[in-house]
């Protein structure tokens, strides 16, 4: 908009727009960040005490962090979430990456319909999928088992891997594979030496997405999980509905840290990929 004659009205609008954007960013971020200081509250309140505002050291404490590790109220759900999340991620990553390689191949038959099928678990409202899975898995005796939830989370996670790996293969020149074959590489060697390094960032991003999706998934766990399958979101759900304890805020702070970590990794991989593929037309869609 450079070169516009700057009228006072335009200037006011410009400031209004910037103020609106600042407010919108505060709306996005502040609710998340406000939990962090509150988790250090010495009192069992969910608001800033006068002592906290005066930065009185006695008003701040780590007691809620210690209470995470008292008993197994939170440690067991954490363990469950990790077991379920990691298992689901392994399944989703292996199947998803292989499928993405197949889909990206120029000879893939029925690509459109196959990719629509593979993406469908991601875009179906979880409440609908959850009801269906509850009926189906119960009839197979898989309700209230770790396996049932792992399978459900894996099928929700796989589309993320398919999408991220497909993106890394978007501009892939398949003649390279023929060149590798002509130079004497068998398909496995050609894959490991040529394609794997290329898709690896996509595989890692996709598996992070899949893990985060499982780590945060609640509807399936609510419908299908028993006491033995209590995950972290399930425990937080009870915490919010039944007796809200500030320990919840301490757990939430850990989850925010996890989000930051996952986000930075994915962004770092994406930028590396963009830097490498500059000019090749690759990028986020």
């Amino acid at each position: 908009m450079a070169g516009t004659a700057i009228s006072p009205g335009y200037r006011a609008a410009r400031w209004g727009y910037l103020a609106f954007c600042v407010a919108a960013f505060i709306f996005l971020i502040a609710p998340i960040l406000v939990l962090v200081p509150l988790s250090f509250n010495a009192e069992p309140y969910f608001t800033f005490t006068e002592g906290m505002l005066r930065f009185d050291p006695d008003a701040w404490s780590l007691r809620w962090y210690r209470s995470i590790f008292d008993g197994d109220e939170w440690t067991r759900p954490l363990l469950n979430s990790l077991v379920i999340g990691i298992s689901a991620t392994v399944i989703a990553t292996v199947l998803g990456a292989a499928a993405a390689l197949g889909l990206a191949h120029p000879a893939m038959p029925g690509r459109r319909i196959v990719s629509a099928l593979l993406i469908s678990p991601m875009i179906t409202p979880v409440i609908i999928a959850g009801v269906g899975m509850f009926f189906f898995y119960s009839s197979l005796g898989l309700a209230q088992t770790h396996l049932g939830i792992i399978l459900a989370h894996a099928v929700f996670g796989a589309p993320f891997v398919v999408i991220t790996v497909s993106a890394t293969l978007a501009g892939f020149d398949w003649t390279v594979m023929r060149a590798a074959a002509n130079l004497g590489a068998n398909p496995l060697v050609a894959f490991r030496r040529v394609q794997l390094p290329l898709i690896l960032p996509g595989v890692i991003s996709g598996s992070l997405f899949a893990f985060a999706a499982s780590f945060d998934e609640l509807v399936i766990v609510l419908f299908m999980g028993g006491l033995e399958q209590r995950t972290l979101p399930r425990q937080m759900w009870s915490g919010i509905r039944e007796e809200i304890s500030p320990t919840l805020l301490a757990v939430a702070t850990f989850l925010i840290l996890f989000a930051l970590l996952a986000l930075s990794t994915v962004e770092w991989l994406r930028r590396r990929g963009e830097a490498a593929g500059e000019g090749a037309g690759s990028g986020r869609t």
Partner: protein
Amino acid sequence: MRSESEVVTPEDTSTRQQPVARPRWRRALGPRLRAAGLALPLVAFVVVTFAGPMVSLLTKSFHEPEIADALPETMAALRQWDGEGAPPDDVFAATAGEFVAARNERTLGRTANRVNRVVSGMRSVIMGGSRLMVEAAAEAEAAGVTTDGAFWRETMIGIDARWGTPEPWRALRDAGQRFTARHYLKALDFERGPEGGYVRQAEEWRIYVPLFWRTLKVSLGVTMLCLVVGYPIAHLIATSPPRRANVLLLLVLLPFWTSLLVRTTSWIVLLQNQGVVNDFLVAIGVIGDDGRLAMIYNMTGTFIAMTHVLLPFLVLPLYSVMRSIPPAYMSAAASLGATPLQALRRVYWPQTLPGVGAGCLLTFILAIGYYITPALVGGQSGQLISNMIAYHVQTSLNWGLAAALAALLLGGVTALYVVYDRLVGIDRIGLG
């Protein structure tokens, strides 16, 4: 491009020199099979673990064999009945026999509940009657009386005169149908009339259709709110220099990656009666201590929290479209004499429409199926159709109705995806 992935290992090189080594069909088929073979494991996995449940959901919405399986002889006998007056003796005998047996096996309660869902009031007719029927059967056995159809007709009508009328029999017959549209009818607020046909419920008794409407309205409202808040943000990120754009993008992505439960918790902490926002407003004197605002556990809470959760889903596709609009267009519009507002309305906005459409549709589809957030912050007035589905799965155990509601929702969402596919292409859903 067709045959390039023919694999030639060193041993193969001799055959390579003779071009007739492989028939043409194999050369064409090999790569296709290999590509399909890579995709096959996930396809099979999705079919079993996801498509299976969807089929199961749809089946459950119109197939309910439980009552027919619990009372097979009754249903067989009722098939001979014309539906007028009291049924013949053998129906009484079959029904009494099955009621007494099921009562002794403690399975009758479940069946009575199911019948009661089809015709309300039937639970007490069945359960109250069967208790006396068990006693009558025992007495008859002790006295050596044969319990034939005539005996049961007399006994049952003696216990409850309603067994002499066609109504409970019609109820049993209707409830015993294996394939039924009644869950869908119920989900659309139809009720069974006295004659057995279905009529629309009186307006004040309708539950589901108004809830569908509310869900639709809330989803639309949240989508509009997301657009109003998200459009300027996406524009700011798209027009910022790269370094600043990256930082701003992270501010959008952090909520996207943060656990839904965490975000919902923070809204409770912020908005509740004794929460941060109310405390702040009281402290600066905007409201009195007794005038704390009710911002959560109602529709307001649902709106605020859902907008926050869904905003990134609108900003990210919008941003990617805006990023591809050359800034020169706006300069050109300005140099041709357009005011900034005109340039925005006539040049910029039309170019962002694909992003607006894609983002809004995605946000709307996500909103329409939202469950966790309304359940936690919606209170009584902020519940949506998904909460009702969960209620029927977990609490009322009326699974057929839950399945029908979910199937109707699925139908709506599928229709929207068809629109999305036409507009954007289903395989272009990005992750931001």
